[in-house]
């Protein structure tokens, strides 16, 4: 998904009515937003955080210092690790790490839904749709989290729904 399209999705899920226009910069097609009241903003997570503030939903950036830092950490993870030109091995490591991270968490920050969940969901979508049933079971916590976010009101929009089977098929495999 191109960054501009993703930001348009985000705008809708945040309930922002007026759509912004985005241009793209360089070979990696980094999104640029021309704001009315200042210089332009460059970069996916930078613009996303800006939109959240525009929608008066600052709580999505975290409420304590700790939460704020964690949100930004996962946003950085999104643009450096998930968006990196990843090969299959990288993706496997990434899913394995996320799976063990999410073992005791409902959301990336723990108990609160934040921008990090939204952007990581958008970023991972293209990989998760391709997972086999067995892989989805292997990354059980990622699956649970992903399934939860795609059902979160207003987030998924036109993205395809990923089906997870509730009963485990491969009970011996972990």
């Amino acid at each position, binding site marked *: 998904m191109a960054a501009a399209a993703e930001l348009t999705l985000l705008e809708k899920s945040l309930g922002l009515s007026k759509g912004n226009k985005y241009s793209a910069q360089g070979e*990696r097609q*980094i999104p640029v937003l021309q704001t009315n009241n200042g210089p332009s*903003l*460059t*970069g*996916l*997570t*930078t613009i996303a*955080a*800006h939109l959240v503030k525009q929608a008066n939903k600052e709580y999505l*950036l975290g409420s304590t*210092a*700790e939460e*704020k*830092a*964690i949100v*930004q*950490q996962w946003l*950085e*993870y999104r*643009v*450096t690790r998930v968006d*990196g*030109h990843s090969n299959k091995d990288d993706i496997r*490591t990434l899913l*394995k*790490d*996320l799976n*063990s*991270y999410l*073992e*005791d968490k*409902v959301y990336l920050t*723990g*108990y609160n*839904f934040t921008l990090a969940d939204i952007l990581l969901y958008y970023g991972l979508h293209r990989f998760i749709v391709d997972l086999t049933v067995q892989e989805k079971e292997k990354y059980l916590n990622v699956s*649970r989290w992903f399934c*939860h976010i795609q*059902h*979160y*009101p207003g987030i998924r929009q036109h993205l395809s729904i990923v089906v997870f089977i*509730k*009963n*485990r098929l491969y*009970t011996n495999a*972990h």
Partner: protein
Amino acid sequence: MRLFVSEGAPGSLPVLAAAGRAQGRAELLISTVGPEECVVPFLTRPKVPVLQLDSGNYLFSTSAICRYFFLLSGWEQDDLTNQWLEWEATELQPALSAALYYLVVQGKKGEDVLGPVRRALTHIDQSLSRRSCPFLAGETESLADVVLWGALYPLLQDPAYLPEELGALHSWFQTLSSQEPCQRAAETVLKQQGVLALRPYLQKQPQPGSFEGRAVSNEPEEEELATLSEEEIAMAVTAWEKGLESLPPLRPQQNPVLPVAGERNVLITSALPYVNNVPHLGNIIGCVLSADVFARYSRLRQWNTLYLCGTDEYGTATETKAMEEGLTPQEICDKYHAIHANIYRWFNISFDIFGRTTTPQQTKITQDIFQRLLTRGFVLEDTVEQLRCERCARFLADRFVEGVCPFCGYEEARGDQCDKCGKLINAIELKKPQCKVCRSCPVVKSSRHLFLDLPKLEKRLEEWLGKTLPGSDWTPNARFIIRSWLRDGLKPRCITRDLKWGTPVPLEGFEDKVFYVWFDATIGYLSITANYTDQWERWWKNPEQVNLYQFMAKDNVPFHGLVFPCSALGAEDNYTLVSHLIATEYLNYEDGKFSKSRGVGVFGDMAQDTGIPADIWRFYLLYIRPEGQDSAFSWTDMLLKNNSELLNNLGNFINRAGMFVSKFFGGYVPEMVLTSDDRRLVAHVTLELQHYHQLLEKVRIREALRSILTISRHGNQYIQVNEPWKRIKGSEADRQRAGTVTGLAVNIAALLSVMLQPYMPTVSATIQAQLQLPLPACSILITNFLCTLPAGHQIGTVSPLFQKLENDQIESLRQRFGGGQARVPPMPAVVEAAATAAPQQVQVLMDEVTRQGNIVRELKAQKADKNQVAAEVAKLLDLKKQLALAEGKPLETPKGKKKK
């Protein structure tokens, strides 16, 4: 919270600078881990720096850690900062890692290094000049500046990589670099070695990925070898072929050791341990062991070396101890001096002299320095109010008085501090004071004392420091401590005490007083030398010919770097002053401090009872030497390092090399016909050997040990790839190849035995005996890798060098010596339950988790009452826990409790 860093990890720079700015917001513990250690339990690849928060969460992104520190100090996030940080992570870092890798690991220079980052540097420069702001996100320095400065510092601190035409970048960089938190971070991380300080870390990292779409190489080893030029290889091979011939003649042993004109004369002192206690591991690594490594290295280099130490015996503490044990102070000193001497002997410390301070020479030299200071007007006299016990007829030192605390009314407050409220007390303010010895009430009397006029000597001291410090190997912490003392201004220091056990003061009216220990303890080095040779002045009044290295923990820096130099400069007698002051940080025990009174920690005399050989202790203590940062002794880690580094890496390589010679070649080193691969290996080992020398010359003891392990790792790979055990059964050519590989490997083993000598003298001697290494090669280490075991050389009997440490052995030692984290054994009951849990039961639980999960989601979606949601979430977590148990997964204890 706890910050995990690794030696030479570039991420430490911004993080320490940001932490410095947010100082005091929260208590920050710093732990140093190896570059390949996985700190974050959920990340597969090792990552440092990492901040573990008190909640148990981990921040593993450098920018996020810095952001957190800034948020703690009240900073608010803004778009522009976010933009810089995103740019740093996505654009700058890939370019920068490539540049640093080329520079540090591959040894490239100039445009090869600058090329990848030029565009990014130009971008920063243009942004700064376009906005005409001094800083990246506005008028004041902020998060973006610290993060980018930290990322760029290792490269840009070398002016060669800071292009002059980028003026705005230039001045931005200089401004930040001159700020205190940044300066401190830079000193801690780069240790004044410049970008090379990153080498131990970057070397362990995979080569940065396809920057600018270049293909990723999976073989950094190949790449690294390729960077050696043909000339370098040819030079290394020529040196190798010369073999034993190129060794200089062995220095004859002299007794006593005295400086020789025209030679490098190295005088090494280790801080004098205080006599009334048994030293713990921290004391041992802090001075005597560190100094020992350097002394042994210095002798291997054939430098004229004298290494001395001794016990510091005068003072109140000895008097107190004597009273406790019902002995005279002299008897206490005799008893503990012997204990110290025995411990150091067991640890194989190679003192030339291990003396003591209670000698007539001490009195003579101390009084002489004092008289010279007195006649030159550097001694002041003043009156001090003190408690005096009339019955015992003496003034009471602070610890000889007890009474009621003037602040909280605690009955048993000591003369210096109240144990209950912790406030510092001036002894004369105590209510109802009592003499601790006879219980009678002391009276306040004034007592005359002598002071060293440090303010008057300050200018001379600064002149001397100005000449000495640049280019010397003073450790950064020592420089920092001295600088901060000078910044606060020196004050007169009292040099006398109302005690009996000390050096008498040779002045009328002071007959019943002695010198305060910190005035005369450092003079102990001189008197100990004087007891060794009557020509001691050739060492101590000979600054032109003698290089003085002094080893100590950082608490001792002011006395060695400031007070003694002031006394010596004031005495105007051409004393030899410290050229290189080497101070360590502190070593902790597990997660706390060593404590004699609580029986926590390993003390020198107990180490021998553990059954673990002295050399293993030496190795581990040196491996974790608190160089640049505090570090911690950990039993588990000791087991790990013994089993992985010593047994599997070093021991395995040396043993295999020797075994191949005995098994396949009847104990005679085979003919070697070097191929181009072998020639490159020779060059590569030579390079690492030279790196080892560079580090030890700068007294980077801990890092130099890594070079030894790197060489043996190369050796293991070399054997693994060439498989001599297979080739020996093959064709004639194969057999010759097996011979070359074995011969080269056993020569690397011989080199390692010498490099290891400063660290593990007994193991080194064992290897040399097994290989029958010719004598001069055992005692001399030059900067080239030589063929010291030529074809036809007969080796001795080879046997394994190290023993595996077992878990239960270590666990029982941990229990015996106490430790903050005596871990609960891993719950056998749970494992059993898991093994018997029926699949149906697991299924039931799983369904319940799914159902409960749905409930929680629904509630949240409806924006239900927070408490209600929290209650349902708690249920969900509980169910998941049960499920995990039933599935036999390890139970995740709350992550915050898991400490390194």
